[in-house]
């Protein structure tokens, strides 16, 4: 089998972006790639505010998915968040015909009475969007008769890509930000976070950022929306600067707050590796007039990770680092890891960044390209195959074939992948944080563990469970001496 048989695109990020902009390479049915809908991502943002009651103006299915997966499984079970309500108006066939505005108005009043929230946010979904219920007007009306603010987000699942849910939710929250009573000096907001936090955003990464800011003497008003309070959001305009812990998610809110309130926004990527960490911290410290303090912290912190930096450089120099976009992280994180690999003299290749996600993240990807980072990109045919894409089973075999073409390659991504090369485990539960200086230590350890233990076997059981169709367990070679 030649590369032509399984490679759909091989070029650089610019070239891929051009193709996507021209409408090429976007599968029409897109059955192979189904990210969350706008409603779900809007909920992610709002769920990161304490004592908020989301009211889903729709049936129970949309509501239960977000309350079960986001609120209860991720927040209550794994992240110490108390159980708070996720209410809905349970729209039914009759409401589809006659409308559900009256029902929504009553639901808001009821929610206020039952839950005593700091804030109520109405989320529309497909049903209420199509039947034309005016959630914004109802929210406005309801506010007169309840004891808290009531906002509405137009978040119909069909109404935009998954990114638009984040952006619209953040945009709506700006209405809560009050004119500053005073300026909080040397204080920033960290923006672009969700839920408090989600599976792709880790407490430990946030802790590392806050630790570094604290060392420099910079205070944080709010992390929006990672478990922040309504009061913190109200005070959001008092800060001197906004910074994002993920350029992609924070970009829209940062731009909007700059445009509307004149609060500058630090445009930096995720702090993976030394260079990006320096950029991140200086990007915050310089506008606050704290460059000297930041440089002192950077110098001190860098000294403490010199052995790790030296190890990463020695180990990665001259190697090809294949970074795959997969369920542990999306394209922006993959690009950040690739950029870090380049910093340590490796040649990064991004694997299987779906054109659909390029389309969704266009501004952030353009920003990264403008910084001069334009990595090689490979897309395999499996990305476009009609199918469910469970566990990326459509692309495993192609990944394994691709790796055979390189002599000196390291794979960075999910430990559920089985290419015949060192696999650096960047999956969800690998050592955290990955950001900042603690991140440098942890990533160096991950690489070291991978390289030093290369001769240990990978689990055939897990591979066969995940991908099937491989050698049966019974056919395994029995180790000698048994």
């Amino acid at each position, binding site marked *: 089998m030649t590369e032509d048989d399984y490679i759909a695109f091989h070029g650089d990020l610019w070239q891929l972006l051009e193709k996507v902009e021209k409408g090429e390479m976007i599968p029409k*049915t*897109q059955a192979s790639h189904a990210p969350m809908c706008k409603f779900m991502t809007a909920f992610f943002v709002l769920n990161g505010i304490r004592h908020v009651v989301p009211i889903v103006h729709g*049936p129970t*299915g949309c*509501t239960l998915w977000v309350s079960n997966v986001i609120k209860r499984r991720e927040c209550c079970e794994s992240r110490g968040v108390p159980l708070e309500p996720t209410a809905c108006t349970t729209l*039914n066939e009759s409401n589809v015909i006659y409308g559900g505005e009256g029902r929504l108005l009553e639901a808001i009043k009821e929610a206020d009475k*039952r839950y005593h929230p700091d804030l109520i946010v109405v989320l529309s979904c*497909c049903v209420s969007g199509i039947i034309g219920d005016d959630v914004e007007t109802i929210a406005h009306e309801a506010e007169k008769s309840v004891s808290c603010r009531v906002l509405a987000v137009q978040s119909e699942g069909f*109404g935009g890509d998954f990114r638009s849910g984040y952006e619209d939710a953040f945009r709506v929250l700006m209405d809560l930000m009050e004119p500053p009573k005073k300026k909080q000096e040397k204080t920033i907001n960290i923006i672009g976070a969700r839920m408090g936090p989600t599976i792709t955003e880790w407490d430990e990464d946030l802790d590392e950022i806050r630790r570094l800011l604290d060392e420099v003497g910079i205070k944080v008003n709010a992390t929006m929306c990672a478990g922040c309070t309504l009061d913190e959001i109200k005070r959001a305009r008092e800060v001197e600067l906004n910074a994002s812990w993920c350029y992609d998610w924070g970009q829209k809110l940062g731009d909007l707050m700059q445009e509307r309130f004149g609060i500058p926004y630090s445009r930096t990527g995720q702090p993976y590796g030394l260079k990006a960490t320096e950029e991140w911290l200086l990007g915050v410290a310089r506008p606050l007039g704290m460059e000297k303090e930041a440089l002192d912290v950077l110098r001190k912190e860098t000294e403490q990770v010199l052995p790790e930096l030296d190890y990463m450089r020695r180990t990665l120099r001259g190697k090809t680092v294949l970074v795959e976009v997969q369920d542990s992280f999306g394209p922006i994180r993959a690009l950040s890891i690739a950029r870090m690999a380049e910093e340590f003299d490796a040649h990064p290749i991004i694997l299987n960044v779906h054109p659909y996600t390029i389309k969704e993240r266009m501004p952030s990807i353009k920003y990264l390209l403008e910084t001069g980072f334009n990595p090689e990109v490979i897309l395999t045919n499996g990305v476009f195959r009609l199918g469910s894409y469970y566990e990326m*089973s459509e692309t495993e075999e192609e990944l394994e074939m691709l790796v055979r073409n390189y002599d000196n390659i390291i794979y960075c991504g999910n430990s559920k992948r089985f290419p015949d090369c060192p696999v650096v485990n960047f999956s969800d539960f690998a050592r955290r944080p990955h950001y900042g200086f603690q991140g440098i230590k942890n990533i160096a350890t991950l690489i070291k563990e991978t390289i030093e233990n290369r001769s240990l076997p990978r689990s055939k059981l897990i591979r066969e469970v995940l991908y099937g169709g491989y050698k049966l367990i019974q056919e395994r070679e029995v180790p000698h001496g048994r």
Partner: protein
Amino acid sequence: MGDKRIELLSTSTERCFDPYLRCALNGAAQTVLGVKGCGTLTHGPQGCEYLVYDAFGHQDCDYTEVETLCTKLCENEIVHGGEDLLAHTILEAKELNIQALFVLTACGPEIVGDDIVSVCRDLQPQVPFKLVPIESAGFKGSEYDGIDIALDVILRKLVKDSKRKISSSVCLIAPHANANPTWMGDLEWVKQILSQMGVQVVATLTYKSTLNEIENVASAETSLLLSHDAGKKAADYLSSEFGVEQICQGIPLPIGMTNTRRWIFDLGKRFEVQGIAKRLVAEGERMVVETYRRKGGYFFEVARFQRTPAAIVADATIGIPLVRFAIEELELKPELIALRSSRPDAREILEREVDDLGISPKIVYGTDVYKTKKSLEEISPEVVFGSNIERHAIEELWTPYIFEVVSPMRRFRVIDKAYFGYNGILNLLEVVQNEFADRWRSKEKRYKARW
């Protein structure tokens, strides 16, 4: 029953509802995913596909064998209609090696009037598999309604009339309805009992069911409903249309000693194998007693709950039989029974049980998370049989024991454990015992060890 305290919540009257149940699309998806060698195509926006993924997990599906597709409708299709995109996707799916493609609708396309039945009819000659359209918009009801909708279409569209009945045969209905991780173990136990009685299972609606089995459902002499939450309509349809007799009607499902005995005896009577039924009961009951005597050791925590006030917050399938189990086996005193569904036939069974047992708990039908939490606050039980939701809901209350026995739960993920039958009793006792041990495990050490 003396002082009846019954509340009936309904999603059509409640305005502000924190639901336990998913929507009709999810139930329909869970049902069709139980048909082997077929694919599922959701005609809806991309978010709705997550409800199908969720159903996938509840149907014991293998993603290397089952395809789930989605038309991923956007604003354009909502404004101009999505029938073209649906047709295009069906034709693309031609390459799949499947016997049938179930086309499910989400809310959006049903409201804008996409006619999936016509699209499927028009395209049927062009595809090598059977197209089965199911109008399952989420707003049509809960996941249980979705199960009923899907079963109705499956039966009407796929079942062939059969003049010949297979003697001593049964069709099993809706074993999957409560989506609890134990339902596959329950189903397996039912099949073992039937097999020991010489009863043939013609089809299961649905679990790893083949199209051929479904086509032959009408040849079953009897039907056995394995849920108190869904499937009754399918059983009624099979009775009226094909004369399939419903058995074990009106009694709780076989959880606990008495319920299991009653259920097995009913089966034995219907199939005229009372001797076998008696033997199965005798052996089963002895096994439970002897096993627990040996394995329970000196702990026997379960014996410590005499007259402890308890709450049962569950689906009806597990919740109703659990009432008798809690009283008879554990000597608990149920003071709150909150069921997620409110089917009239299930309500009758529960109220008969409550009368028969001589208790007067507060009963909530069709409960939501708010009502559950408030009821738990009001009743203040010491023991709760519930799910992971109640585990978090009681954190601010004084409730020492939460037995996580229904979905969503974080345990019972890999092995198909049952609650039905005699091993089911031991499995439940094990949950109780483990929770008891966790409750009393020291969380902190009083001083540091020296080594």
